[in-house]
Each structure stands twice: as structure tokens, then as C-alpha cells.
């Protein structure tokens, strides 16, 4: 009798404990969802606002009862922003530029990363320390010499020797970016070399030795064995490089301030919209002093920003899953 009482007591205690645990778990889950949803909302909110603005009609700006969903649905904003930006030629131009520099950067950084990870040559550690130095020195320090350098571009005076001129002016061409990315010194290249080096360091040595015994040379081993296995860091670097290159204003405004590239056009969109909007609306036909409605200009700017980032968002949606997984395995963490 007493024994069964004790068992029942124990049972009750156990059940109570279980219930307590369950409530704590549920409360924690609710708390966690609240946090995750809250933070996600903060991140997505500006994007949602831009979507809402893009489809809004001009009259809707002055209607205070409209929060997100427009009453007068229209595509005018998108059309106008596209007109002002010359969107499709601009996008094509930018994409070609970004893809070329991304491929060059990835290739040169993969080579350098492999070289630093797998070969011992005199001074290799010192040289790798210099790679880290390139990450640490702010780009603004190199800005003026680089600018002057590309203004009269000449390596070791070769061009001066051949043509007698003081080098070539490469400003406002794509060459500065192409040269820097092909030589693994461009935008955040130090970080990419670091990522590749960490990954190649983690690959088992035996694979290489087996390839060597089978008669593959160093270059062949790299191309046929190491690169196909290095998909995770390649995805990471390509995505980072693409996005940062696409968004970069520093180098583009320094070297190519007059080129038709997305970041430059977007950062001057405000002035352009102000100047062109009356003409597009047909109100400045008399050539009079008609000013654009600032609210309308703001709308066009928001739409333009949305148009600029949409290719990135689409790209991100496509590769997003690989991206997170690849970073987990790419050896960013060493």
C-alpha cells in the first residue's frame, strides 16, 4: 500500500516536472518566434515599402489613409524610372562588367589561395602576411596614387619607350577594374584569397600525392582535382564578389565616374529625376521653369533603387541555399 503511494507520488512529481519543462519550452519557442519575426520585419520593411511605392499612383502619396497597398495601382513609376535610368542597356552593361571582374577575381584569388595553401617557397609566410596587410589598409590611403597611376598608365616605362608618350589614360574605361581583379588586388580580394587558402589547407594531402603518382603535374592537379572539389568556397567568393562589385561606388566613382554603371547612375538618380521628370510628364513643354514635385521625385528614386537591387535579389533567391551551406563548409572559420 505504502509502496504504491510512493510510486504514485513519484509519478506525479515526474508529470509535474514534465509539464514544467514543456511550458518553459513553449514559452521559449514563442519568445524565439517573436524575436525572429521582429528582426526579419526590420530587415524586410524598407524593401516592402519600396515595392508598395513602386506600384503607387501619384495621387496616392497625398492620401493619408493608405498604408501599404496602393488604391490606384499603376506601372507609371517603373516606366519613368526605367526611362530615366535607361534601365536595360544600363543593366546589361553593368552585368557584363560585373561578371567579367567577378570571374577574373575568383580565378586569380583561387590561384593565389592554392599557392599559399600548398606550396612552401622562400618567403611564403611573409608574402601571406602581406595579403593580410592588403585587407587591413583602407582603400582611401591608396586612392590618389592609384588614380594618378591609371591616369597615365605605364608599367616600367614600356609604353613611354615604345610610343614616347607618358603612358595611357585608362580612366573612364573598364581597364582599371579588370587589371586589379585579374591581379587579385581588387575589391576585398585579400579576403577571398584568405577564404580559398583556408579551404585548400583543409583538403587532405593524400589526394594530391595520389595525383602526383598518377603522373599529373601541379597545374593539372589543380584544375582536375582541386578545383572541382572547391565548389563551396567558389560559390561563396563568386556571390560576395558579384554583389560587392555590383554595389561598389568607391572604385567605380574613382576610376569610371562617367561610365554607364548601375551604382553611379543610382547615386545620381536624384539629380537626374529632378531634371528629367517635368519633361517626361510633358509639363515643361514650354521650356518654362517647372520644378518637379519632390514627393514624386522621391517615389521615382525609390522605384529606381528597387529596379537596381532586383537582379541581386533574384540571384540571391536562386543561390541562397547553396550560399549558407557553402559558407558553413567553405572554411571561413579556419
Amino acid at each position: 500500500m505504502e509502496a504504491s503511494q510512493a510510486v504514485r507520488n513519484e509519478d506525479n512529481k515526474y508529470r509535474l516536472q514534465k509539464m514544467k519543462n514543456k511550458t518553459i519550452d513553449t514559452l521559449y519557442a514563442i519568445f524565439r518566434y517573436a524575436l525572429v519575426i521582429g528582426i526579419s520585419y526590420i530587415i524586410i520593411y524598407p524593401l516592402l515599402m519600396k515595392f508598395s511605392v513602386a506600384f503607387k499612383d501619384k495621387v496616392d502619396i497625398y492620401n493619408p489613409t493608405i498604408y501599404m497597398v496602393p488604391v490606384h495601382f499603376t506601372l507609371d513609376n517603373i516606366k519613368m524610372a526605367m526611362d530615366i535610368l535607361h534601365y536595360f542597356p544600363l543593366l546589361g552593361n553593368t552585368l557584363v562588367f560585373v561578371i567579367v571582374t567577378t570571374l577574373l577575381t575568383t580565378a586569380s584569388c583561387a590561384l593565389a589561395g592554392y599557392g599559399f595553401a600548398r606550396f612552401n617557397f622562400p618567403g611564403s609566410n611573409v608574402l601571406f602576411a602581406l595579403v593580410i596587410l592588403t585587407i587591413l589598409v583602407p582603400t582611401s590611403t591608396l586612392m590618389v596614387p592609384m588614380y594618378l597611376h591609371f591616369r597615365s598608365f605605364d608599367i616600367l616605362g614600356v609604353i613611354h619607350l615604345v610610343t614616347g608618350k607618358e603612358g595611357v589614360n585608362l580612366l573612364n574605361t573598364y581597364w582599371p577594374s579588370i587589371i586589379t581583379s585579374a591581379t587579385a588586388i581588387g575589391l576585398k580580394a585579400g579576403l577571398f584569397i584568405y577564404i580559398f587558402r583556408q579551404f585548400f589547407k583543409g583538403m587532405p594531402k593524400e589526394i594530391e600525392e595520389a595525383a602526383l603518382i598518377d603522373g599529373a603535374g601541379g597545374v593539372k592537379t589543380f584544375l582536375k582535382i582541386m578545383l572541382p572539389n572547391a565548389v563551396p568556397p567558389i560559390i561563396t567568393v563568386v556571390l560576395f564578389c558579384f554583389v560587392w562589385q555590383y554595389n561598389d561606388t568607391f572604385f567605380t566613382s574613382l576610376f569610371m565616374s562617367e561610365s554607364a554603371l548601375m551604382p553611379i547612375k543610382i547615386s545620381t538618380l536624384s539629380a537626374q529625376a529632378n531634371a528629367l521628370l517635368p519633361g517626361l510628364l510633358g509639363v515643361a513643354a514650354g521650356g518654362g521653369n517647372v520644378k518637379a514635385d519632390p514627393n514624386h521625385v522621391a517615389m521615382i528614386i525609390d522605384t529606381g533603387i528597387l529596379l537596381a537591387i532586383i537582379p541581386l535579389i533574384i540571384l540571391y533567391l536562386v543561390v541562397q541555399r547553396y550560399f549558407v551551406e557553402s559558407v558553413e563548409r567553405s572554411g571561413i572559420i579556419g
Partner: protein
Amino acid sequence: MNGYKLALRHKRSLLGVAFIFPWLLGFIFMFATPLIQSIKFSFSKLTVEPTGFILESVGWANFKEALFVDATFNRILTQSVSEMVLNVPMILFFSLFSATLLNQKFRGRILARAIFFLPVILASNAISAAETAGLINLVGDSSVVSEMGEASSTYNIMSMVMILSEIGLPLSFVDYIVQAITRIYEIITSSGVQILIFLAALQSVPGAMYEVAKMEGATAYESFWKITFPLVSPLILTNVIYTIIDSFSGSAVTDMIFSTAFTTQNFGLSAAMSWVYTLIISVVLVIIGVLLSRRVHYN
């Protein structure tokens, strides 16, 4: 036999040099040369000519002008550096917190991750420049824009300050927390890469460790501080350095250095400014590096 081995080793090291050759070329011509030139520029007066430039040595005059004559440089410099000092701990705390959150199993985790890393994609100077330009255009005055930015977190900050100081927290700490809350958007959007790095670190912590801790009766709180934290601590250093470097790009000082060079054409002064900035950042990096690497746990 011995000679053959040596030759192979020699060949290997030559091959290694061949692999890093593109980088080496770039480093010498696009990094080392400009770096040395930039030191030279900071001690000279530079005049740009149609075909090249002329240097005229002026000694320390550029540095003197940057530090003692120029009206705004000191202010902007201290402001940028102190802002960075404030931001770094907030970003670190937030990113470690989000990484732990995203590492847990719950429904919709994949979606949550996708959203949390969106700022990595969207962080762009061009976009933020366009946005502020749009706002300035709208209200006609840049000072109003910054005021609006502060007011746009419609939340009543004063009540928060009252509550926190009622609890008895020191006022400077309250100030810090309130700042963190008003700048939450900025903090979230600049911690994408850091979250990624922490998340990668968390994934590499063996799950068996948590199981053992749980069997021994450790609470979630204890297992975080005794297992998770020590194992991700090496990445804290990485993240601090990344965050500091990241704050270079697009800071007010960088903008000022840029405009000094290309709007007022004062290249020497600009080079001097950038070197002052570089030196200050390096000092900060060294101090933080030494302080942190003493505490970091390596396994």
C-alpha cells in the same frame, strides 16, 4: 637520388610562385607602389599636370594642416572613431545572438536565415546615397533629414530611459542601450557577414558535447557559457577585425578624404589625412588584438 629529391622540391616551390604570380604582380604594382607613393604625397604638395604630376616637398605641413588648421577633420575623425568603438560591441553581441538563434532547430529556419543574410546583399553605399539624396530633395535640408532619422523610430525613448534608470543602472550604460535601440536598423544591416562567420563556427561545435553537458545536468545557460562561448571565441577576434575594417568603407572620414582630393584638389592634404586615419585605426586594431587574443581560447 638525393639530387632528384632536391630538384623536385625546387620545382614545387617554383610552381608555388607561379600560382601566386598574378597576385604578386598586382601587389607590387597596385598596392606596394601606391602605398609608398602615398607616403611621399603626404609630405609634398602635389600639382596635377596634363601628362603627369609635380611633387614639391613641404615636410610636415600637410599633417599640421590636417590636425591643427583644418576646422572639421578633427571633429569628423573623433566622431567616426568613437562611433566605430560604440558600434563594434553592439554588432558583435547582436551577431552572436542571431547566430545562436539561427542555429537552433525550429520551423521556418531556412526562411529566417535567408532573411537575416539579405543585408549582405543589399548593403550598398550607392543605395544609401540615393536614399538620403531622395530625402534631402523631399524636405529640402540635410539637417532635417538626420533629425527625421532619429525621430523615425517612433518609439518613445524617454520612457525607456526612465525605466532603466529607475532600476538603478548607471546612466552611461542606459545611454548605451538606448543608442543601441535607436540604431537597431543600422546594426542589423551591418552584421550579416558576422552572423555568417559565427554560424559557421557554431556548426563546427560537436553535438556530442552538448549531449554530455545535458546528461551532467547543465542548463542551457550554462552550456552556452561553458561550451559555445569558448569554442566560438577565436571567431570573436576575426569578427572584431572584420567589423572595424568594414566601418572604413563609407565612413564620414573616407568621404572627407575623397572630397579633399577630388573636389578641392588638395592631394597632399588628402594623403596626410588618410595616413592619420590609417595610423589611428591600426592602433585601435593592435590594442584590441592584443587584449582579445589573451582571452581567446584556442583548442
